[in-house]
């Protein structure tokens, strides 16, 4: 095999082109390792996992949330995790964490998802609580937490989980 000599322009240029081609084929992009995202979904105290955390990335999101995926995929979505929790009283809450391709896109998703009613809450960069569900975003992450009623226990569970997830998410 001929020795590579950086002082020879043709070899350097060729090596550079090969490197660009390899990178563009995604060889250096790591496969989705969802463990870091899944670890964000550990249950809050007093709640147990009703359904184990499940991940999705890219167009796979359509098979998980059907047409609900349109907004995320269209804007630029990387991956997501879903989980459900239950407390001893039988209350249930659901967690959805979406990692968008940039903080700006997470903000865009958040803005489109929230209604014009609801109360602001102190999570992430912005948060809104509406009856039985809460949305917020932080960095490239958009988070939705929802229950099945507006009972005090459910609402407390939603807020507790939101606080936990907010603390676990990396600061932008």
């Amino acid at each position, binding site marked *: 095999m001929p020795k590579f000599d950086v002082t020879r322009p043709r070899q350097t240029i060729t090596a550079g082109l090969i490197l660009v081609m390899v990178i563009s084929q995604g060889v250096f992009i790591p496969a989705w390792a969802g463990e870091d995202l899944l670890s964000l979904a550990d249950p809050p105290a007093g709640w147990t996992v*009703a359904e184990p955390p499940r991940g999705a990335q890219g167009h796979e999101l359509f098979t998980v949330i059907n*047409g609900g995926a*349109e907004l995320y*995929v269209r804007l630029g979505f990387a991956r997501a995790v879903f989980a459900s929790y239950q407390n001893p009283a039988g209350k249930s809450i659901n967690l959805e964490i979406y990692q968008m391709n940039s903080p700006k896109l997470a903000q865009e998703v958040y803005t489109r998802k929230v209604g014009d009613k609801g109360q602001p809450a102190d999570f992430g960069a912005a948060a809104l609580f509406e*009856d*039985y569900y809460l949305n917020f975003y932080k960095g490239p992450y958009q988070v939705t937490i929802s229950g099945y*009623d507006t009972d005090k226990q459910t609402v407390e569970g939603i807020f507790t989980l939101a606080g936990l997830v907010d603390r676990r998410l990396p600061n932008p």
Partner: protein
Amino acid sequence: MKKLSRRSFLKKTAAAGAVTLAGEKAIRSLWGRPALLQAAGLSDIAAVKGRDYSAGTRLAVEKVGGIQAFVRAGDRVGLLVNSPFKNFGASVNPDITVAVIKLCAEAGAREIRYLKDPHKGYWGRSDAAAKHSEELKLVKYESGNRREIEIAGAVKLKDAKVTEDLFDCDTFINVSIAKHHKGVHFSGSLKNMMGLCPFSTNSYFHFGGELEFGFYGDVDHLSQCIADLNLVRKPDLCIADATVVITENGPYGPGSLFKPQRVVAATNAVSMDAYCCRLLGHQPVDILAIPKAAKHNLGSMDLDQLRISEVEL
């Protein structure tokens, strides 16, 4: 609330002199004939308002003919329940599904099968499900087998893959939720049929159009495919959950809730959707799948020509 027994129903109708009845076939012959339905005390569409969704389901079915008009003893029943979404107001309330299953069992069905399995955790939200857990265990899950079929009379969806179980049941009951849908604005009985198809078929609904690319890029195409899919098999009975439903971010939610607190029964999906979409502020003509399905002769969207019963528990 007075229950109408089969014997008193027959007596009442004979006394009215409307028709000579011969059981379920005679009841079915009344649908779409408001005057005769009225004389028989029945309706094409029945909406029951109240917070007891189980009782509401039973009364709604009674008012369109009673479960015996749809399920005969020994029948295999296929249930298509819109239950894949976890969020509140996005899937059929489990209490309604339990009521339908119990009605079928009481009518003597020998098999009840989901045509699409409910999502994991679905039954956990229902006290009625907890009370009837033994009966629910008898309901079979979808087989997972699919049949590739050509759809005669279709405009766009010339062929599709559909769950094999649809063709193996004697009675098909469509149990939907009347809710917001981001793409087609309203999702009800007609759209619920997409639950019979795998993602590969449903992808054509969303991406097979000619307009702007996107999941909801070509709403006309999507609506036509929904109408075409309904040609595969008409449900024998339609039940709609119009109790607590999302009015935004459909089909998945979560979103603002609207609470009409109604359970609705109807004898076809077109009339059902024409009635239910109005509860959410739409006109039937504006929900494209409805006129397209009406054009396929799958039911009437002209509510003025139908007998509609609206009662409160």
